[in-house]
């Protein structure tokens, strides 16, 4: 800013005279020019804003509108046209007291409580190990660790369904060799199977972010700590981890948002363990069933709104906790 005003002062000497005299018209011109510069800068983000408005804001508004309506049958045999009538907050009210929905929410919340910290700990450990290694070695392992994340969700699930198969998959025989009878298809192991799959996919992305943050830690501190006699492990835990705190909050947040909306894995595992994974097993599965199987888009959007609010609250709580403990 200071540079700019110096330049403008060089180009427009009259302005400086105006400033010295402190006359209102000159000040206004300066203010307007500054606003114009600000707007020009802000306009660089217009493409993003346009996309965001079109693909995020507009659908959200449409969803809010859909949830305020309901389709009523014409009665009798149910043949013929349905009438769409305005019901206001009825769908949302029904969603809020829907026990099936909330038990699904409880399930994924419990699953998230276990999986999210586990994912963060494993990703952080991987990132720290990579950081401690030499550059070349680290580069090779980085790619390998990122590969699972690059595999599309449905494809990954199908690969793991094969791996888990008690009949043709390798894992069952491997565990049998160790003396364990691990049937990944059984209903008791469903969450373990899904969790393992999710963890495998998520490590790469989280590790990458944390590794990037670790690179920006100033090395002088390590030197000082080493001189003071601190071990590598101590350095890692007491210096590196606190430094990447901000990124850790980010990855945790993203992990929570993703885990609460889990969909691919239960969808494909439903055929394997149909007595456990019902059509309303997770909130996302229930919304999908309502929207695309049952065809009740109004109720599906109401459920989506409730899910979004729950995720928003969870994210806000996490953010508040982390920023409070920071200060």
């Amino acid at each position: 800013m200071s540079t700019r005003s110096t330049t403008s002062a060089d180009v427009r000497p009259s302005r400086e005279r105006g400033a010295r005299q402190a006359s209102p018209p000159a000040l206004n011109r300066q203010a307007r020019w500054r606003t114009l510069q600000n707007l020009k800068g802000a306009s660089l983000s217009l493409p993003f804003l346009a996309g965001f408005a079109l693909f995020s804001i507009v659908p959200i508004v449409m969803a809010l509108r859909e949830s305020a309506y309901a389709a009523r049958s014409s009665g009798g045999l149910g043949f013929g046209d349905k009438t769409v009538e305005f019901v206001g907050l009825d769908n949302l009210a029904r969603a809020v007291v829907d026990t099936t929905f909330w038990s699904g929410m409880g399930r994924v919340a419990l699953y998230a409580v276990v999986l999210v910290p586990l994912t963060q700990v494993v990703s952080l450990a991987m990132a720290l190990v990579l950081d401690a290694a030499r550059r070349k070695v680290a580069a090779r392992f980085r790619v390998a660790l990122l590969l699972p994340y690059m595999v599309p969700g449905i494809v990954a699930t199908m690969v793991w369904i094969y791996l888990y198969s008690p009949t043709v998959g390798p894992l069952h025989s491997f565990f049998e060799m160790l003396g364990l009878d691990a049937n990944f298809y059984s209903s008791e192991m469903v969450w373990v199977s899904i969790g393992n799959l999710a963890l495998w996919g998520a490590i790469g992305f989280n590790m990458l972010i944390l590794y990037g943050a670790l690179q920006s830690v100033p090395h002088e501190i390590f030197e000082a700590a080493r001189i003071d006699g601190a071990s590598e492990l101590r350095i890692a835990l007491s210096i590196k981890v606190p430094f990447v705190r901000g990124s850790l909050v980010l990855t945790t947040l993203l992990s929570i948002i993703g885990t609460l909306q889990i969909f691919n894995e239960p969808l494909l595992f439903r055929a394997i363990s149909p007595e456990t994974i019902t059509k309303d097993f997770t909130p996302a599965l229930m919304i999908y069933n309502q929207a695309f199987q049952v065809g009740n888009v109004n109720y599906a959007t109401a459920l989506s709104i409730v899910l979004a609010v729950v995720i928003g609250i969870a994210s806000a709580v996490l953010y508040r906790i982390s920023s409070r403990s920071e200060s």
Partner: protein
Amino acid sequence: MNTTTRRLVGAGAAAATALGLAACGSGEAEGGDTTGAASGPVTIEVWGWNAETGVQIADAFNAAQDDVQVEYVLQASNTATQTNFRNVMTTQQGIPCLVQGFAPLTTMVVNGWAQDVTDVVTASEGLYNEGALAAAKVADRYYGVPTGSDGQFLIVNTATFEQNGVEIPTTWDEFLDAGRVLKTAGVDITNLAGEDPSTLLNLAQQAGAEWFAIDGDSWTVDFLDDATLEGAEVVQQLIDEDLVSNQTYQDKPALYSYFDSGKMASTTTQWWSLTGYQTNFAQSAGSWRAVQIPQFADATTPVTPGRATASFVPQGCENPEAVMAFVDWQTTAEGIEAGRNAETAAVGFPVQIPDPSPYVEEVVPEGFFVDATEAGDVIVEAQGAAIGKFELGPNYDSWFPELQDQWGKAVAGQITVEQALENVQEFVVGDLESKGISYTVAD
């Protein structure tokens, strides 16, 4: 923005506008040509997911006559068709004239999607078998086009049966008895997949069940009638006495390897599964025999389960006669021949015509059955006795996932099949109530 930049932007904008106008212009020229020939053939759009032969059948039809031009729009899958069709009916733009059945016909009627085509179908009734005509009806009116169902029959691994000295069953009681003997030898009589309730639906249909009946202006709901319970009893015994395996269709390689191993004695199937079996059964190919599906002891005439999801003419299509012309043509020898798959050289089995026996040779795979001719006869017989219709009610889309859930629990032994049916009936009733549809529950 300096002058150079402004000039560039201006040039770019001019170029874009010019291109746009040019495209518009050529489009209009094309449009001009077709509107000039408006009195020519009627063009109808047909949706389906038949990737192998859909387009070639349409092309052959177009070449064979001048009155109707069919445009076959290939859909990615059954579910994709459902999504796309839902969108089209919401926007009311580009509604096709014939859609392959992706959901039960009654659902189409309830959603106001299917047109009443009784007038055009009645004229062609003679071309179709009873099952195909029944499948196209809802409440005695034709809302779909006659669509043949795939008659179920039983294939048995003769090696396994002979090894254990068991006779091939002809009734469900005999089937259960055979299962008990085979169990002592560590063999399952059949596979019962926990995610697929079609076994129960087939048994119920075969026993003569009627889960939904129309009574004037109201539905009669009955998931627990005697026929259904008879079928449920068969399944319950299979589960309780552990006479079956529970391989899932999701894990296909495991499923096929299990079917092939000789550890599974028999399975109900239909004509289109045979090629897949032949390709994947390395060990047991050649030992299989096709027999008529077991009947219930109190059956007067043999019947075959089989439900067709009828293709239908959507509301908003203005040429149902043209659609019928296309559908009728597919019952002719020419039409059936047009469906010959170039890769496999096999013809699509015409399940909608009264006598498909000239074509059955094509669908019996080589080297799979002990006696291919006998297998062909069984297939034709199964088609002839196929029931075709099983009323699934006005809210099938809602209750079928519930049936899947309950069936999964029943197969896992957590609840009985009867309890599962009770739960489904309760769900159906609650759903009809919330939708404001009239119903009564039978005693």
